[in-house]
């Protein structure tokens, strides 16, 4: 018989050796946890493969840089921070599994993660059930204010609405006809609902002057869609495209716009999901003059921003790596988390969540962001035009910081709702009926 059990059975001395070795190993491992407890674990939940990797990989890298910098300052509460990186691979159900793994198995104190709204909605039940804390850095569609999530990205009133206001103004070209072009999932659908209501009710645009189109993720054959935009734009009124196209589909979209000869002076395109990172893979000369709306641009010259970019280039050892808005959101969120933890002296999510509202942290464009009771932050809004070198020229900005509104004032179902986790302890409190909507 050649099986291993038979071999061991013939050598009783071997078994005693084995038992002794096992006992030693157990003893050693029992001593180790005492050392492991000296670090605070920080989870990073960003796609490193799949269709969203192009956008999310850089966020994983910036959190690693922030952790390294904090550890150089002595860590938090005297303990070093330890990063736990997982790859949910742009697979939305896998996001939920990986979140559960980070919280239950790795016992992280906080998670920095997610990009698409569908990934955030997938992990939400896990964070609520296991009562942990997620910092979400990406601009999104609003209509949400959860106790376990801090939204450091822009709500629609901090990005989409100011962009539409700019285009409708004489500075932006006095646009009268609007094309809302989006990828088919929850963020563009909800944002376009809000924008349609805003255009019709506030700017008094006729429904004939609004065209809404959706395309799937990764859509590459833009010929028909772009010629539809061209035809819509030749009715004699100034037309603009508001683009909520996400991910890989942006590249063939802009290429087709350039090929069909649509210049930014004819039909400008303002995008909400195209930043320095996405432009790095494009020939930007035909795109000069097209716009993006963000709360941060790499080209903004402030001492904080220049120091950050220098540190980033040293950390990545690549002087050409770009910085973008979601990275700044993580910088602000991380600083706020550290401040709150040091204030309450503990990383327990309940205590940190209580301490967070009211926390202030500097942003990279010269202001101070504050965390509001609805778990959103105050942010400045910038409109930038694409430059031939892939950076943005700021052509307009808000005078001060805009507070993020979780619930849109333009949708009938949400205009009476507010989020308040300080006094009302409710994410969707109806100010008219004076009732809390409860868990969604």
């Amino acid at each position, binding site marked *: 018989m050649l099986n291993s059990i038979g071999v061991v059975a013939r050598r009783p001395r071997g078994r005693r050796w084995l038992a002794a070795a096992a006992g030693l190993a157990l003893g050693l491992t029992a001593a180790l946890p005492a050392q492991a407890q000296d670090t605070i674990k920080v989870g990073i939940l960003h796609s490193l493969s799949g269709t969203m990797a192009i956008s999310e990989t850089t966020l994983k890298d910036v959190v690693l840089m922030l952790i390294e910098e904090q550890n150089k300052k002595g860590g938090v509460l005297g303990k070093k921070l330890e990063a736990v990186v997982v790859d949910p691979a742009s697979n939305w159900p896998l996001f939920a599994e990986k979140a559960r793994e980070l919280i239950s198995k790795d016992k992280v104190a906080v998670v920095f993660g997610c990009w698409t709204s569908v990934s955030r909605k997938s992990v939400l039940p896990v964070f609520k059930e296991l009562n942990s804390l997620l910092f979400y850095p990406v601009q999104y569609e609003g209509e949400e204010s959860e106790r376990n999530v801090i939204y450091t990205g822009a709500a629609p009133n901090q990005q989409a609405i100011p962009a539409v206001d700019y285009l409708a103004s004489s500075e932006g070209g006095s646009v009268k006809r609007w094309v809302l072009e989006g990828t088919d999932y929850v963020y563009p659908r909800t944002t376009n609902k809000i924008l349609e209501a805003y255009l019709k009710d506030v700017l008094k645009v006729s429904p004939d002057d609004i065209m809404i*189109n959706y395309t799937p993720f990764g859509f590459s054959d833009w010929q028909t869609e772009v010629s539809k935009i061209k035809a819509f734009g030749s009715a004699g009124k100034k037309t603009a495209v508001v683009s909520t196209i996400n991910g890989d589909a942006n590249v063939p979209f802009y290429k087709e716009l350039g090929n069909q000869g649509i210049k930014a002076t004819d039909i400008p395109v303002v995008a909400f999901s195209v930043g320095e990172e996405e432009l790095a893979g494009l020939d930007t000369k035909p795109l000069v003059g097209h716009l993006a709306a963000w709360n941060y641009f790499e080209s903004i010259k402030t001492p904080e921003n220049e120091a950050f970019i220098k540190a980033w280039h040293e950390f990545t050892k690549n002087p050409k790596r770009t910085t973008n808005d979601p990275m700044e959101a993580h910088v602000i969120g991380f600083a706020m988390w550290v401040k709150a933890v040091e204030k309450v002296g503990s990383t327990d999510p309940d205590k940190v969540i209580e301490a967070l509202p009211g926390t202030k942290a500097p942003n990279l464009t010269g202001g101070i962001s504050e965390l509001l009771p609805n778990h959103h932050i105050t942010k400045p809004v910038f409109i930038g035009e694409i430059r031939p070198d892939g950076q943005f020229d700021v052509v307009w900005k808000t005078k001060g910081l805009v507070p993020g509104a979780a619930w849109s004032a333009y949708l009938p179902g949400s205009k009476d709702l507010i989020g308040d986790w300080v006094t009302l302890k409710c994410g969707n409190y109806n100010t008219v009926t004076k009732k809390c909507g409860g868990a969604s």
Partner: protein
Amino acid sequence: MRFSRACLVALLLAFSFALGGTAARAASLEDALAHFTADDFSETITGINEVAASGDPRALTVVRALQDGQLMFSAEKKAVYVKDGSGKLTDAATGKPIVGTAPADVELVRLNNRLRGAIDAAMGGLTLLVKNPGTRYDAAQAVFKSRQAAVLPTLENAIAKEQEPGVKRVMMEARAAIILSSGKASDEDKLAAVDIIRQRADQDSLGLLSSLPPDTSAPVLKSAAAAIGGIKNRLVLWEAVQNAWYGISLGSVLLLAAIGLAITFGVMGVINMAHGEMVMIGAYVTFVVQETIRNHNPALFDYSLAIAIPLSFLVAGCIGIVIERTIIRFLYGRPLETLLATWGLSLILQQAVRSTFGPNNRDVGNPSWMSGAFDLGGITITYNRLWIVCFALAVFIALLALLRYTRFGLEMRAVTQNRPMAASMGIRTSRVDALTFGLGSGIAGMAGVALSQIDNVSPNLGQGYIIDSFMVVVFGGVGNLWGTLVGSFVLGIANKFLEPYAGAVLGKIAILVLIILFIQKRPRGMFALKGRAVEA
């Protein structure tokens, strides 16, 4: 005496008027330039319009400098400069180099979209009389778009001098556009203008006729409405032709992606889920070739694709042969295992490329002969799509020739029709298998070169084409090149005719449903090989 004194006074007055006139003109260019020192977008637009209207010979240089990002200003000195290629500053009003060093606060005059539109309009007015007919044509088109009444005298002057018929026609259209939008001309002039615009009959004409000023008289409005109706009818017809062209170009992309699969599936019955990754590898080969050219010899950029095509065929083909020899060979007759193995292989290849090149998109540029578009009748044909259609057909014909006229093609066809009989005739079927897989992968590599021009080059490139490739192969019939050709073009045209009505998402769903229904009727696809019945 009195007469000669009056003469003298008249002469003096005339002289002073002339002096004052030139002084006024020079002053107006300098006044206009002062607007650029305010660093305010509205001031800059006023500046552009005043510079263009000043009539100063330096106006064109100033506006061109602004367009090229070479116009600088100093708020301290209230002066405007033009920067030349070497970085030296010259005074904008006089053209003379500055004395001494530049002021410390010299900044670029900033632009935004509205300003760029104003610059285009100004350049149109300023370049109507230059020597180059191409520039005059573009200038006339710019005036047509901007319809500034102030340009009318220059335009009339240009029309009188114009010799080229094409340029003259566009200038007449520009004049018609100004007449219709300004409101001061007589009704006869306006009706004649409507007629000229109706003959232009493109989307810009529609826009112009739909936005006539509200004080236009009724007969002119009626004529414009009739013209709009006529143009729209003509455009509907051209739209159908445009959709057919889009369908053909989509079909050529599907053909390129699917033809390699049709061969491997047909000859070996192997379901190769890593086929999309072969396309991706071809695209990355193009990227590497272009990067090498950019770093060592940028002048060769226009030839980068010609170099990349044989290189990608070899690279992808060799990888295909390696895959066949190491993995596929052991899994013949086990389609499920082949499917799983090649699926795993596709993930490995994607991650390998991601680890080597990074997960971001890679910048693959279009050579100059592939950029832009031209108008044919009422449709726009982009050069890159045109070249891809030609390339797809060339690959198809080359493959047909390979199959029909070479020994290897003969062996491939024999093995496809009846493997045991072919083996007993002395054909080394395992060698044919390896080379066929290499051929299919190599063609996928060449498809990747073409696709890198229209899609973004990232590790996920293959995923977008694998489903479409299988769709084409299943629909067209396995192993038959003509089936793949007809199938890909039918699917492409059907998709592009559905898309304007149903939208992109529903259009794709409708095509998939149609294919499923078609397969119910003809399970072997459109052009099925009878030989497979013996094989099966």
